[in-house]
């Protein structure tokens, strides 16, 4: 596997996404909205409690709320790949550009990795961007009102560093499999959204449970890794030159 080959494909796709306003606005809107609106709601909610609770209770409550908000940053990388990955794979089908691409001296794995990275990178970038906005607003409030920084904390680090990327990989792989079966970008997005929905619920439930204990969080990460590996082999079996040319109509 030559990573530089995959990177060429990734760069080309990223450059195409930059020129597509629909994709650009779609992927930027959600994390910014969550990153800004969510802390505002939390701050308002915490503000109403501040006169009734002790400082320690307020800090613990704020910490819980912040952890709850962190779960939304698992939702973002689970949903966004259905927008990008559908363009990445179905877009090649529509432009009929798969055949010349497959005729180049690149392996199936290199192409798959390149395409997957092109979906993964912007999704994770905007997730981190949204999460940074969330953290800055929450910390600004907490430092001013409680004298502590709520973020980063170990749970936030685990979600952003492990669970969120794993959820994104899972969604990208699911979308690769869907792209191999449909010809229309809208259908790919709708199906992508539909198929990842149970996975999203699973991830959110698992992430929420993981907030309770480090062992559970570790278990969630392992489970997600196993799902990712299974989906990876399925998407790899789907993304084969011969399959693409003879069955991706």
């Amino acid at each position, binding site marked *: 596997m030559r990573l530089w080959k995959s990177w060429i494909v990734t760069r*080309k796709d990223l*450059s195409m996404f930059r020129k*597509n306003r629909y994709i650009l606005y779609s992927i930027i809107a959600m994390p910014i909205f969550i990153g800004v609106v969510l802390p505002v709601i939390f701050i308002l909610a915490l503000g109403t409690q501040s006169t009734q609770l002790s400082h320690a209770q307020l800090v613990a409550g704020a910490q819980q709320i912040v952890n709850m908000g962190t779960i939304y940053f698992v939702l973002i990388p689970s949903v966004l790949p259905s927008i990008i990955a559908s363009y990445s794979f179905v877009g090649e089908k529509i432009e009929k550009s798969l*055949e*010349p691409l497959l005729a*180049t*001296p690149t392996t199936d794995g290199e192409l798959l990795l390149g395409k997957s990275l092109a979906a993964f990178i912007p999704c994770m970038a905007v997730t981190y961007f949204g999460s940074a906005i969330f953290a800055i607003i929450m910390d600004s409030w907490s430092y001013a009102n409680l004298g502590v920084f709520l973020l980063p904390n170990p749970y936030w680090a685990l979600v952003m560093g492990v669970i969120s990327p794993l959820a994104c990989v899972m969604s990208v792989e699911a979308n690769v499999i869907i792209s191999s079966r449909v010809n229309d970008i809208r259908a790919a997005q709708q199906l992508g959204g539909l198929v990842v929905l149970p996975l999203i619920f699973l991830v959110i439930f698992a992430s929420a449970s993981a907030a309770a204990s480090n062992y559970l969080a570790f278990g969630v990460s392992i489970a997600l890794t196993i799902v990712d590996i299974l989906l990876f082999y399925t998407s790899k079996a789907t993304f084969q*030159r011969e399959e693409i040319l003879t069955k991706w109509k």
Partner: protein
Amino acid sequence: MIETENLTRKFGNLTAVDSLTLHVDEGEVFGFLGPNGAGKTTTVRMLCCLISKTSGTARIGDHTVDSEQDCLAIRKMVGLLPENVGLYDSLSAYRNLEFYGRLYEVPEQKRRENIEHMLKLLDIWERRDDAVGTFSKGTKQKIAISRALIHDPQLLFLDEPTANLDPEAAKTVRDFILELKKERRTIFLNTHNLDEAERLCDRIGILKTKLIAVDSPRNLERSLYNRTTIVHMEKITDAVLTAVKNLNSVKNIRVSENKLILDMDDPEKQNPELVRTIVEAQGDIQYVTELKSTLEDVYLKLIREAPSTK
């Protein structure tokens, strides 16, 4: 450059290509003719290692179409122009070519030179930064050909390069192929356009799942039809007819108005004797022509007579 032996590809119960045995020499322009669904594109895809073969062997240069390692080497040495141009509409002409140049591992300096050379040759250099989506079909086809040549391949597969192009754009593309022919590149040309095949190709293969015939366009024409000389005369007399009938070289004689229509084996050698005989029999010759069968006649005859093998 290309060698296949009993190359076969089946899709379930359907045989797309059946026992194809073929060789294409280095520097040759080989035309592959056949109706829709004859297996031309499947053959090209097998030879470019895009799809696997069911049985048989195929070699491109020193590599067999088999292992992943050989296939990577083959893809590196061949250029492919598929039936659909498949360019990225939102990227510029330059970026499209640059992307493929990188994938074909062309060093940066060489890549820049090749792109500039191609785009200037095809008169697109001034518009190199325009999005491909803004170009006409003919211009897109030119860019797609440039893409196939970006890594200077020894072997070029062109699948219907002039299909859906207006006559002027088709001519530009044909002229470009002739330029490539002068550079002694090996070209494998899939086409429906018989006139194009006749003008561009050194040899032609006619495929209808099985390979029906392979030869130069001229030999194909001659192998199926008698060569016919037509002698236009002022008047055909009995003396002329008798004299001509006595010639051993003439296989068959027909008379139509003031024309003598004669089937002959080797008109270049036998026509002078024929003319002398007619003149000696007091016949007045206006002019002598050859009735030529076209590649279209040959193609239609072979395709109609070929058994359906699917």
